[in-house]
């Protein structure tokens, strides 16, 4: 009923290949953007900004970066957190060496550092694939975290070995650091995430994206039809690491405010990988759905007992939380192994048919 496509005729190839073949999709997106840009900022509390909205966006962005590499180009990576760290440390060095630098510019540039590192660690992908490549990216993970710990220049020789974000202003408004307003930070993150998502959608639908998908589905066949494997794989590593690096810089500067090297260790890599897998490999929407499930849901569950007035000790809530999220992940993967994005696609198809299935 809501998704009825009756009366929407496609009379040209351009219309058939449009981003939104069904008009309701465009409305849905407009509605979500309206929520994100207008409704949430007007209604959300500071806790909601800092614990729900901002982290979901940043994790979704990191998963989007990984999804380009793993979901679109088929190169398994376990080094996401380390590449996030490269972005964060690059941004930290830039903002401390050039104190007046525009933060948006610094974040944009820091992505290039992680892209360069990503390409360097992507070189083995030309010779090895699958699990063997995963091991090579795991090496990046261990090496880079070790480097963040040992190379004192990176954290400006702080005694604690941690990096701390100072108050950074942009056009007279504090956007990062302890004095920054949550709503300002939210809009900053939302703006960056929307921009990157827009590019990601277009790049994956175009020539480069098709090249990646061909390599993912069968690299020998792709090579035979004339795709340069080296170019395809390394460009996937570069674009993916660039996005992941930006996500890392946002992670520390717009959300955490401080970071120790151990933050970028393997649990973070796995967390991002889970978001990408549960959301759906090879989709853009999936990253957001996955981030909502993995990042936001535990926070919501942990606030429930207090909101309902149930006297459950907080340690017990944590245990319950782990169990509930674990059960949900297994349930979703059994219902739809291709992830939440595919789940939504099935629902959407059914809605288009409803109430008259053939």
């Amino acid at each position, binding site marked *: 009923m809501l998704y009825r496509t009756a009366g929407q005729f496609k009379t040209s190839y351009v219309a058939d290949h449009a981003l939104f073949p069904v008009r309701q999709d465009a409305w849905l997106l407009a509605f979500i953007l309206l929520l994100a840009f207008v409704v949430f900022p007007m209604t959300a509390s500071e806790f909601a900004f800092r614990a729900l909205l901002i982290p979901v966006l940043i994790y979704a962005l990191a998963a989007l970066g990984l999804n380009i590499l793993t979901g679109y180009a088929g190169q398994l990576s376990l080094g996401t957190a380390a590449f996030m760290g490269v972005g964060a440390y690059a941004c930290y060095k830039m903002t401390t060496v050039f104190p007046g630098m525009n933060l948006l510019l610094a974040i944009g540039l820091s992505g290039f550092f992680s892209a360069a590192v990503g390409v360097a660690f992507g070189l083995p992908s030309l010779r090895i694939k699958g699990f063997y490549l995963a091991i090579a990216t795991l090496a990046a993970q261990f090496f880079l975290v070790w480097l963040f710990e040992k190379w004192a220049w990176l954290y400006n020789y702080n005694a*604690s070995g941690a990096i701390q974000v100072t108050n950074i202003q942009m056009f007279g408004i504090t956007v990062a*650091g302890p004095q920054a307003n949550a709503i300002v930070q939210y809009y900053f993150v939302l703006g960056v995430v929307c921009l990157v998502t827009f590019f990601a959608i277009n790049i994956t639908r175009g020539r480069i994206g098709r090249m990646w998908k061909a390599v993912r589905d069968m690299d020998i066949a792709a090579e035979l039809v004339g795709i340069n494997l080296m170019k395809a794989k390394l460009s996937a590593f570069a674009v993916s690491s660039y996005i992941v690096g930006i996500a890392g810089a946002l992670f520390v500067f717009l959300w955490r405010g401080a970071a120790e090297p151990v933050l970028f260790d393997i649990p973070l890599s796995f967390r991002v990988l889970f978001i990408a897998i549960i959301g759906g490999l090879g989709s853009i929407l999936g990253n957001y759905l996955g981030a909502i499930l993995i990042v936001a849901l535990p926070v919501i569950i942990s606030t429930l007992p207090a909101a309902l007035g149930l006297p459950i000790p907080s*340690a017990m809530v944590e245990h319950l939380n782990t169990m509930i999220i674990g059960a949900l992940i297994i349930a979703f993967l059994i219902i739809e192994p291709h992830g939440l994005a595919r789940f939504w696609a099935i629902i959407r198809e059914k809605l288009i048919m409803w109430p008259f299935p053939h």
Partner: protein
Amino acid sequence: MKTLSRLGLLSAAVAMGALAGLPALAEDSVNVTNLSYRTGPFAATGTPVMNGQRDYMLMLNERDGGVNGVKIVYDECETGYNTEKGAECYEKTKGSSIVTQPWSTGITLQVLPKSNVDKIPILAPGYGFSPMAEGKTFTWAFNPPTTYWDGASMILQNIADGNLDSLKGKKIVLLHLDAPFGKEPIPLMQAYAEKHGFTLLPIPVGLKEMQNQSAQWLQIRRERPDFVVMWGWGAMNAGALTEAAKTKFPMDKFVGIWWSGSDADLKTVGDAGKGYRSISWSFPVSDSKVMQDIKTHVIDKGKSLSAPGEFDYVFYQRGVVISMFAVEAIKAAQAHFDTKVVTPEQLRWGFENLKLDDAYLAEIGFTGMVPPFSTSCANHAGHSGGWMLQWDGAKFVKSSDLLKADEAMIEPLAIAEAKKYAEANAPWPTNEECKM
């Protein structure tokens, strides 16, 4: 339609009731939330401290009906020692709690810059960033009764028998957790090493290597140090103690910071741990008045979460002492501002004006459990000093008189570090009213 409107009315009435009910509750209670960690890799050492903190608050509510008639609401927000969860808990509780107890150096580092903005005092007893003691710079942070740097200074004095020059030519290994907490004593100990001519060799233990420290202890065996000083926490303590026992390292040459002196860790090595020392700013006195009151009002009534036997532990009773700091600050603020329910700003004044001398400690039943100290607007730690405790195979006993840190050595370094922090985080508001 009718049922719908009735439902609406009902829910509105419930909402009104809830709204009306809340302020009545809040009027005569203060909320003290603890960012606890009863889960995760550090739960074994964290839980006794949390239990002690909780039980003291429960005891006051039971025995006196709170503090001067104001009930204490002791809440916990579980962090699992995870910095991300800690920051989330901070955001969740900052509206209700009058004090932040971050409970990890990582979380402290996250919360510290926000304390100036949100204006909630941080209570980090015996942990966090050592220069936080400089009250003029760190207006909102408190680390009574003593700092990590004080601890390092006291340990060195004790192993040198009071004469640091006797350490000349000796070799001291600092076995530390490779995290901000473990790196905390390095600058001070390096300064000491240069001044008194001993060699300092820091050996880091990564978070992943905590349980298996064979590589580190192989290095220690090769280096043959005169002393090993440990800055460990959680699973790292038990790991180090078992390795030391296995490699037959002489326990009387092995000294830990106060977080490395957990009864539970030493019970695992038992007799083999005999002679191990740990500096401490608290000491368990199970027959003191306050502990007996906790026993009658909380434990015997079955309200405590503590395990059997935990009552006599150093860590459990340290938790009691920590809660006492918060309560004394509330009392001081109540008296000074002539109010019942203190605000975070008033509590900050209370923390700055703690006066815990021997007579007062005896009055509240804490004789011998914590050294006397007082804080001021310039001195947020109090620098109480501490005792060296020694494991006798079954429990910790005092093996020294009250040790005092060498403030002449520490203060210039702390002031310089505080200044560096303030400059790096500019604009950083300092306490200009403090003229001390």
